[in-house]
C-alpha cells in the first residue's frame, strides 16, 4: 500500500462555524479504506487533498467512526483551505491517515482532566472532549477552558453551551476582547486563558492537562500550569507544524530532533523541555 496515496472521499456536510471557519463532514467512498482513515485517536491528524490544489495536514475534529465519516474543522487561511471555502456537499477530496500520536487516553484513566483550547485549537480538543464524554466514567473531573479572540470567533458555541448544562463537566468560555454588537453568552468572560487558569482550583497530583492553541499562548499556559504545581509529564500539547508527507520524510515538521508527524503532534511537555523554539 502506497502511504502517499489518498483514498477518495466526498464532502457530505458543510457547516459554517464562524466567518472564516467551517466544519466539514467527509465520507470515504470505499468502505474498506474508511475503516482505516476514520479510526484514530483524538489529537492525531490526517492529510486532506483537494484535487488540483494540494494537500494539507488537518486534525480530526470529531469521533472515530466505523462508517468512515470524518469531521474536520478548517479555517480558510492557506492555499488549500481558502479554495475549500467554496466547497459544497458532493465535492471530491482525498484523505490519508491517521498520522502521529494523539492524546494519551490510557494514561488519563481515573485522572482529572483539564482541557485548554485557544482559538482554532478547539478543533482537536473537541475530538478529545467528545471521546472523553463517550466514556465519561473512566475519568475524574472534567474541565474545559476555551478562549477565542472575540465572541464571533468562538467555535462550537451552541454545542459547548449544551454540554455546559451537564453536571459532570465544567466549561469556561472567555474572549480576549468585547465586541460592540454581541452580549456575551452566560458563562463567557472577557479574559485571557492564563488568567482563567489562575482562578482554577485543581488537584495537581491527579490532574492531566491537554492543550491546543496558537503557539503564542503556550509559554504562558505552561508556566501557569507549572505555577499551580502540575509536572511536565502531566502537560500534553499539540504542536502546529506543516507536516507535508506525514511519514517522517519531507523534513518540514522538525521540533529539535523530534518530528511532529511521527513523534507528535501531541507531546508531553517533559519531552519538549529544553528544545528551543518548540513552543513558539
Amino acid at each position, binding site marked *: *500500500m*502506497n*502511504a*502517499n*496515496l*489518498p*483514498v*477518495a472521499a466526498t464532502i457530505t456536510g458543510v457547516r459554517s462555524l464562524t466567518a472564516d471557519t467551517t466544519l466539514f463532514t467527509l465520507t470515504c467512498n470505499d468502505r474498506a479504506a474508511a475503516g482505516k482513515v476514520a479510526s484514530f485517536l483524538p489529537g492525531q491528524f490526517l492529510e486532506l*487533498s483537494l*484535487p*488540483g*490544489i*494540494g*494537500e*494539507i495536514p488537518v486534525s480530526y475534529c470529531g469521533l472515530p467512526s466505523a462508517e468512515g465519516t470524518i469531521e474536520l474543522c478548517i*479555517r480558510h*487561511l*492557506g*492555499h488549500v*483551505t481558502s479554495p475549500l471555502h467554496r466547497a459544497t456537499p458532493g465535492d*471530491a477530496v*482525498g484523505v490519508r491517515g491517521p498520522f502521529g500520536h494523539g492524546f494519551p487516553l490510557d494514561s488519563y484513566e481515573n485522572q482529572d482532566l483539564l482541557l485548554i483550547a485557544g482559538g482554532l485549537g478547539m478543533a482537536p480538543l473537541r475530538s478529545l472532549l467528545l471521546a472523553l464524554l463517550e466514556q465519561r466514567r473512566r475519568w475524574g473531573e472534567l474541565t474545559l477552558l476555551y478562549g477565542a479572540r472575540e465572541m464571533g470567533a468562538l467555535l462550537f458555541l451552541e454545542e459547548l453551551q449544551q454540554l455546559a448544562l451537564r453536571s459532570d463537566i465544567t466549561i469556561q468560555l472567555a474572549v480576549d476582547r468585547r465586541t460592540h454588537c454581541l452580549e456575551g453568552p452566560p458563562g463567557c468572560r472577557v479574559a485571557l486563558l492564563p488568567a482563567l487558569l489562575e482562578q482554577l482550583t485543581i488537584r495537581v497530583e491527579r490532574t492531566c492537562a491537554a492543550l491546543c492553541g496558537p*503557539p503564542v499562548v503556550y509559554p504562558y499556559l505552561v508556566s501557569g500550569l507549572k505555577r499551580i504545581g502540575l509536572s511536565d509529564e502531566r502537560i500534553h500539547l499539540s504542536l*502546529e*507544524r*506543516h507536516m*507535508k*508527507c506525514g*511519514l*517522517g*520524510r*519531507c*523534513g*518540514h515538521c*522538525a521540533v*529539535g*530532533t*523530534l*518530528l511532529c508527524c*511521527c*513523534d507528535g503532534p501531541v507531546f508531553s511537555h517533559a*519531552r519538549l*523541555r*529544553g*528544545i*528551543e*523554539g518548540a513552543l513558539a
Partner: protein
Amino acid sequence: MSVHFITANRLPQLLHLLRQRGELHAPLRGADGVVRFAPLAAGTLPELDALRTLLPPKIYLLPPRETILTYRDDTNYQEPQVTTFPLILFGLHPCDLAGIGYLDRIFLGEDPDPVYAARRSSLTLIGTNCTPDQFCSCHLQPSPLSASHDLFLQRIDDGFAVSSGSPGGDELLETLAELIEERELAADDTRRFFGSQLKQPPQSELDPYLLDWQELAGHCLGCGACSICCPTCYCFDVLEFGGLDGRSAERLRHWDNCLFKSHAQVAGGASFQKDRAQRFRYRYRHKYRGFGQLKGIPSCVGCGRCREACLAGLDLRPLAERLERGVS
C-alpha cells in the same frame, strides 16, 4: 589474501561488458570543466581521479522534481507509471555509496516509497576508492552508515581489486569472469577510505547553547548550495498542479531547502524558523543528529561538497567536533 583482480588496461573491456547490462553512467568532466555523472559513451573512460561530482548520485533516486501522484476525476489519485531501465553507476566513492545507504533507510524503511523503490531497484552501484582532499572528512569523521554497493573496485597499483557487496554483485562478478585474475595481496592492504567510525554525537535533546550559531549563521548567505549538493539532503516540498482541463492534476515532489525561510512556514505565514541562525542550526541537527526514526544517526558522509560549495567558506565540521567533545 587472495583477491579478484582486474588490471587497469582491461578497464575498457570491463566498461564494455557493463554496458551490455544497462545504461552506464560515470563521472565525466564536461567542456565546462565540471565533473558530473553522465552517460559513458563507448570509447570514453570515466574521470576516476576526480574527487567529487558537482551533484551527488541522489539525483538518480530523487530527481529535483518528480511526479509522485496523478489525479483524474474519474479515477481519483493514482500512482504514476515510473519507467525505469537498468542503470549502472560506475565510479561511486564510498561517501556517495554511504549517502545512498542513508537515503535507502529514509525511503525504503517503513511504508517504502514506491517511486524511490522503483528507481532504486533499477540501479547497480559500482564503487571505487579515492584519496581525500582538504574538503573531505570521510577519513576524519565518517558516517557510521555502511556503504551499500554491488561491486567495489579498490584501486591498487596496476589495477582494481574487485569485491561484491550484494547478490546482484555476485552475479555481475560471474559475467566478468574473463577479465578477472586471482592475485595475492597483503591482508592489511585495504587502501580504501571507508574511514574510521565516528563516535556517536551526544544524544541529549539539548544542544549546548553556543554563540557559534549566531556567529556562523551571520556569515551564511542562505543560498542553500550546501543542501543541494549534499548526498543525504532529501527534504522535499509537495506541490500540486491542476490540469487546464479542470479534471486532472499532478502531485510533485520537489527538492526543498532548510536554509530557505519558507521551509518551516505554516498557513498564515507564521514560521517556526524565522531566523537564519535557527535554520542553520536545523541543518546542523539534521546532518549530525538525525531526525525521527533516524535520530542519533549522523547523515554527514564526509564528501566535502558543502565545504567546497559554500561561498562563505562555512564548515559545520569543527562545530560537530566541538559539540562531540562537549566544549561549549
